[in-house]
């Protein structure tokens, strides 16, 4: 009789790295579909190219480095989708491939493969592309006119347009009314349009509704914990309320019972939350396991740090990648946050630093 002699425990929970990645991909599907509807088939094509390039580069890199093939854990697919989500819909396809190379080979495989990268591959690759191809990466477009399947297929009805955040920065206008035209007949989208994605922006960041559906799925499946998104969005909103252009607390305290006062006060925080890559970043990028802290307290500190940095970059900075830079900077601090937030053992005194 041949008996298997392995160490305890002899049973395992069902989740695997691949099953977790599968859940993430499922959560990204609504946003993929939304990108196709909003930006046309070209967006879906970009996602496909990104995914395929990531997979091919991962396979080749592992083979050249003489390591085992890790395609089966599906992390390359997830990186591919998230990378494409960060790109403008009119980006030339060859730039997508270069971005995939940078994300998979440089950021991930050169540092040791899955589990060893110290920054988020998709975000870092986006920053790299912005620096390498600034014109193409800042050429934003929005869908023009009414929605129609046929038009979406040809993708011919994308017109270049400023993103809401860029337009605001250029006009240095205070956010008071959604109907204010700013420049070149650009009208700031209404809150509803912001929420549904009828605006200019990256492929995956625009449709907040689709992203929230996906985020709800991830939270229900316990793939992500709520701490990082809550801390990120919470601290960001608080900073906007305290130090933004509309003084939230003053407006409310002056006239706490008037509906219009609340409307005015809440307009800026809501607008800021729904603009740019914030929702995508808070739920899908900052929560990346490898580059975020593993302790609960650490996750909360990480989220607060991201929120603060995003606020600073959006209100006082000059660049359009507030979310990307915040998350990357906090990624770099994650190992230190882990060491500082380690719990003392059950029944132990506070651990001494060795």
């Amino acid at each position, binding site marked *: 009789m041949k008996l298997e002699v392995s160490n305890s425990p002899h*049973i395992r929970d069902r989740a695997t790295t691949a099953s977790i990645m599968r859940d993430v991909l499922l959560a990204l599907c609504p946003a993929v579909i939304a990108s196709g509807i909003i930006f046309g088939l070209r967006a879906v094509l970009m996602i496909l190219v990104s995914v395929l390039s990531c997979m091919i580069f991962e396979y080749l890199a592992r083979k050249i480095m003489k390591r085992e093939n890790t395609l089966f854990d599906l992390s390359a697919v997830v990186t591919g989708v998230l990378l494409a989500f960060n790109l403008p819909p009119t980006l030339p396809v060859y730039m997508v491939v270069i971005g995939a190379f940078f994300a998979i080979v440089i950021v991930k495989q050169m540092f040791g493969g899955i589990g060893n990268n110290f920054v988020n591959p998709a975000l870092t690759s986006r920053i790299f592309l912005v620096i390498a191809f600034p014109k193409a990466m800042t050429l934003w477009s929005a869908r023009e006119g009414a929605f129609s399947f046929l038009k979406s297929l040809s993708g011919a009805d994308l017109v270049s347009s400023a993103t809401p955040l860029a337009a605001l920065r250029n006009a240095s206008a205070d956010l008071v009314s959604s109907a204010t035209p700013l420049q070149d007949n650009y009208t700031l989208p209404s809150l509803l349009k912001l929420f549904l994605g009828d605006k200019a922006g990256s492929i995956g960041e625009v449709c907040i509704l689709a992203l929230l559906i996906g985020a709800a799925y991830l939270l229900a499946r316990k793939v992500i914990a709520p701490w990082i998104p809550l801390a990120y969005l919470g601290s960001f909103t608080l900073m906007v309320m305290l130090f933004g252009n509309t003084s939230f607390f003053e407006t409310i305290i002056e006239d706490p019972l008037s509906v219009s006062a609340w409307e005015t006060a809440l307009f800026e925080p809501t607008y800021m939350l729904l603009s740019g890559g914030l929702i995508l970043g808070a739920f899908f990028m900052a929560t990346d396991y490898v580059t975020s802290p593993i302790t609960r307290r650490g996750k909360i500190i990480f989220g607060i740090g991201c929120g603060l940095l995003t606020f600073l970059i959006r209100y006082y900075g000059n660049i359009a990648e507030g979310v990307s830079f915040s998350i990357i900077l906090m990624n770099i601090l994650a190992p230190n946050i882990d060491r500082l937030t380690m719990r003392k053992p059950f029944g132990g005194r506070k651990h001494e630093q060795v």
Partner: protein
Amino acid sequence: MKPVHAFLGGVHPKPNKNTDVLPSIRLNDFPEVEILLQQHIGPPCACVVAPGDYVYVGQLIGKAEHPMAVPIHSSVSGTVKEIHYVVSAIGAPVESVRIESDMKFNMLPSLSCPVINSKEEFLAMVRSCGLVGLGGASFPTHIKLSPPKGKEPDLLLINAAECEPYITSDYRLICEHPDQVIDGILAVMKWIDIPRTIIGFEDNKPFVQKIFSHELGKRVFKTGEKSDIQIRSLKTKYPQGAEKMLIYSLSGRKVPTGKLPHDVRVLVMNVTTVCFIGRYMKEGVPLVRKRITLDGSALNTPGNFNVPIGAKIKDVIAAAGGTREEPRKIIMGGPMMGVALDRDDCGIIKANNAILVFGSKETKIPAESPCIRCGRCVAACPMNLMPTGIDQSTRARDLNGLEFFHVMDCIECGCCTYVCPAKRFLTQSIKNGKVFVKAENARLEREKQLVTSLAGSLPGKEGQSGKQDQ
């Protein structure tokens, strides 16, 4: 009812308590038994029988010479065939007595119920009946019941949690002999002078509250007699039955790292251990039988079986109904902390609670992949440790890292490895880390002593020169 404290972490494996409604079956069909002469923590017993001797059930075959040792008795009547060394379940060589049973189970004529008049007599009785911790730890009970001066317990906790999947032997004991459990508890409370007892059980065990309430209701207590016994249900979560977790859940006291329960004035006993005290005081037969849960997909008829100590595992499996497919893995214990055996002819020891027999389907353990830093192990650890950090430090042979991550505080419950999506062998790595730390600290200690002894041999000083071999 005081609030119940919940420890952080823990996991919820599928309970698989398939045998909890089945009554225990007594099995005696064993032609020979293999009784190990060390079934306790401490030095082994000395053999007092020789090949050719006829022995009775309950006759002393292993004399406990060291103060920590606990005597061992024959579980069958028959002829001693051989005294030899065998390999135990964990791979260590142990002296063992092989006895051929005459299937008559003749009891030793001189067996009688003990008469106890003092604490010393009580402790001597606990030792002489062969009692060790029957929850799996095999700690000598007479030592457990003698805490150091100044650390006398004010609380007795009875561990009826049985948090491992599959195992139901403690639960069946509660269903079948609640009177002996209460007898044992009252005896310990009386002779060790403990004012209060709490029996803790997991809430996936039906009727325990009712059974004990009914049993306690039948008793009439005299004034002044210690009778403060509470029964408390605990939320089912592995490892609720781990000593430190149980103490915290039932009393809110945290055992400091590196310390023992008596340092927080608590005494924890497994329900089967305390039941045996009650039984021995009424029946006078030393510890020679054990109730074992047999379960697993490869078995025909899982259940709880009362078997003689020393019965070989393959014989127990056959007597219990046999297998329906080729066994690929036999575990002594539960699936979270049990030991996988490499052979099926080991004898049952006092510490056994379960034998799990699995076929090829459950035996597949997936291959390890790189850590993705998901943090599930950190969230699952009941001791608040960082298993992934310890794993990393062990693989890097980093002594400082291992001490930073408090590797010695791990209770080896297996929660981290259970939840890891990358299927990393974290518990195994942590065990290796502990071995490494012990070895390294011993080596550093030896080097320090070598340096000190060399310094003492410098010219001009008196005394021995040269190396001192450890």
